[in-house]
């Protein structure tokens, strides 16, 4: 393959960039999705949740979202748990996030900025 114009180069860059979003270190400019991946989370299917979220982000070409796995979030009754940290907003925690709900989170919460009311465990929670 030979790159012959800046347009071609930029196209290549966009493709390559998608795979590397996670390497950005900056805090604050990114929406962070935290997936609870302790033993109970994994048992409840958190791995599927995580890969579904990643898949959906890639499908929809969303760049400003970073997905991080974390330990136990403390809501073992509602695993898998996903917490959403948006810069300047209070965190939102969703419970019982299966594959379907994971896609819903991306499409409704992230893209359309609407809350999925029936899945929220706790809406206001001060970040330590």
């Amino acid at each position, binding site marked *: 393959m030979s790159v012959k114009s*800046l347009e071609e180069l930029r196209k290549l860059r966009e493709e390559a960039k998608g795979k590397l979003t996670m390497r950005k270190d900056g805090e604050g400019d990114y929406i962070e999705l935290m997936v609870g*991946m*302790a033993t109970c989370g*994994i048992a409840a299917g958190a791995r599927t949740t*995580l890969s579904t979220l*990643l898949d959906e982000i890639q499908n929809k070409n969303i760049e400003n979202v970073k997905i991080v796995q974390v330990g136990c979030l403390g809501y073992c009754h509602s695993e898998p748990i996903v917490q959403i940290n948006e810069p300047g907003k209070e965190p939102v925690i969703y419970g019982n996030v299966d594959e379907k709900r994971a896609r819903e989170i991306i499409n409704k919460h992230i893209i359309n900025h609407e809350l999925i009311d029936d899945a929220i465990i706790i809406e206001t929670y001060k970040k330590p």
Partner: protein
Amino acid sequence: MDTVRSHIMVCGGTGCISSDSDKLITLFKEKLSSAGYDKEVKVISTGCFGFCGQGPIVKIHPDNVFYVQVKLDDVAEIVEEHIIKGRVVNRLLYEEPFYKRKIQSTSKMDFYKKQYRIALRNCGVINPEEIEEYIAFDGYEALGKVLIEMSPKDVSNILKDAGLRGRGGGGFPTGLKWEYTAKSPGNEKYIICNADEGDPGAFMDRSVLEGDPHSIIEAMAIGGYSTGANTGIVYIRAEYPLAIKRLNIAINQAREFGFLGKDIFGSGFDFDISVKLGAGAFVCGEETALIHSVEGKRGEPTKKPPFPSEMGYLGKPTTVNNVETFANVCPIILKGSEWFSSIGTETSKGTKVFALAGNVNNVGLVEVPMGTTLREIIYDIGGGIVGGKAFKAVQTGGPSGGVITADDLDTPIDYESLKNIGSMMGSGGMIIMDETSCMVNIAKFYLDFSQDESCGKCTPCRVGVKRMYEILERITEGEGTSEDLEKLELLANMIKLSSLCGLGQTAPNPVLSTLNYFYDEYKEHVENHYCRAGECKSLIKYSIDANNCIGCTACARVCPVNCITGKPKEVHIIDQSKCISCGACFDACKFDAVIKP
């Protein structure tokens, strides 16, 4: 679903590989695949993170967790705890030397906080063997912009406006150098990248080539376009096998993508790069000597003028730039000269990479804006002196530079300020010394280097430096005279003025600078036969402190010449006439009873 959710970045720089980071990578892959996570977690070998004293380093994305001194035994725990369960392994986090706090992310570490990375921007961030990753971080955009939108003159002008100066030590304005070559008549021209990093204690060029080789290739192509050269040559030390390997991989990838070769970006500009190996000669850092070595000859310098920009490789106009200089080019093209010139001091713009080493806590590569003070580098970034000992001096500029004392720690560093205090920027080696370093011995160390590396072409350097070395040898052996000190200074100034090339002209600097700042120490060596750092073996006379000696006999048992006598539980005595000052008793005594004067 094969969606990658996490990247494990393992440092693949020479420093970390020396402590088995390459085996870490293999082991990570094994553990991940046996846990069934190999599809969603990628292990990547990346360039130097700079924090070499804490290596091997493993950084995990997207969590942004930075593990230090990771050993093979730790891999299983990281996979099981961090990757599978999402729990950070606290034990492996970096601990601040002062507050003893564990820190998880680099942005909160003092070592990284004051740094500003331009030349090292991609080191530890990308996989140097994947051109796609370089492209993802704006790679080859600058080359495209230059070839499509700018004239060769625009390119040298933007570098001139930015104020970029040679990072190899000389500090000559890069834009001007390119302009001179461009103006020289002839249509066969060359551009050479000097990667023959010879300063003992500097390794930034190696780290850039290992961690971000494409940035050098791209900048060389830009330089080729600006100066009118169609051939680039990287002259690299044979002692850097990993850098050579990565560079060759990168060159081949660049050819594949059409960033090297014919008609780059459809602009009609042709450019290609070849790699030439050095074979260990410090003098080859000198442009003219380097060019001879590239031609396959002995690396001896020749008189300037003619400058390489008029008559260089094979007699054709040639530009020689250092690796770090090239590493600054692409960001300047993309972000503009105003951005670059807003960083730094009046005369020195941008940043400089320093290799921090010696008796400092955080050993490694640091990149700071020009104008940062030595105190900030040594105490904030470097974490202070090892073992809380007293700071004595810092040496910059390698064998061509000098020492800087505590009095000048608050000097903002740039090309001029360092010269004013008797040292120089050099290629960026920065060796921190504490009270246990003898300044006469340090001067001797550098002179030993210079006299050995002298190519022998001109007399002042070949004979003069050798004579200076012999005088220093006498002084450290306690046979020096006050006359020797005068002779040393006289010779030093003579050699500075009359040597042919940079090596000879700067070789006396370590002596002149230590004579200037530590004259007392020289005097003590000569007049009192006393070395206060206790480094000059011939001047050390050990004795036993009767108050501390409990008569454990440890010293007598280790003495190789049996010169220590005494009964058990009684005070021991050293027979000075037999003592060879080997120091074995000093190391053996657990009660601080053996004392150095």
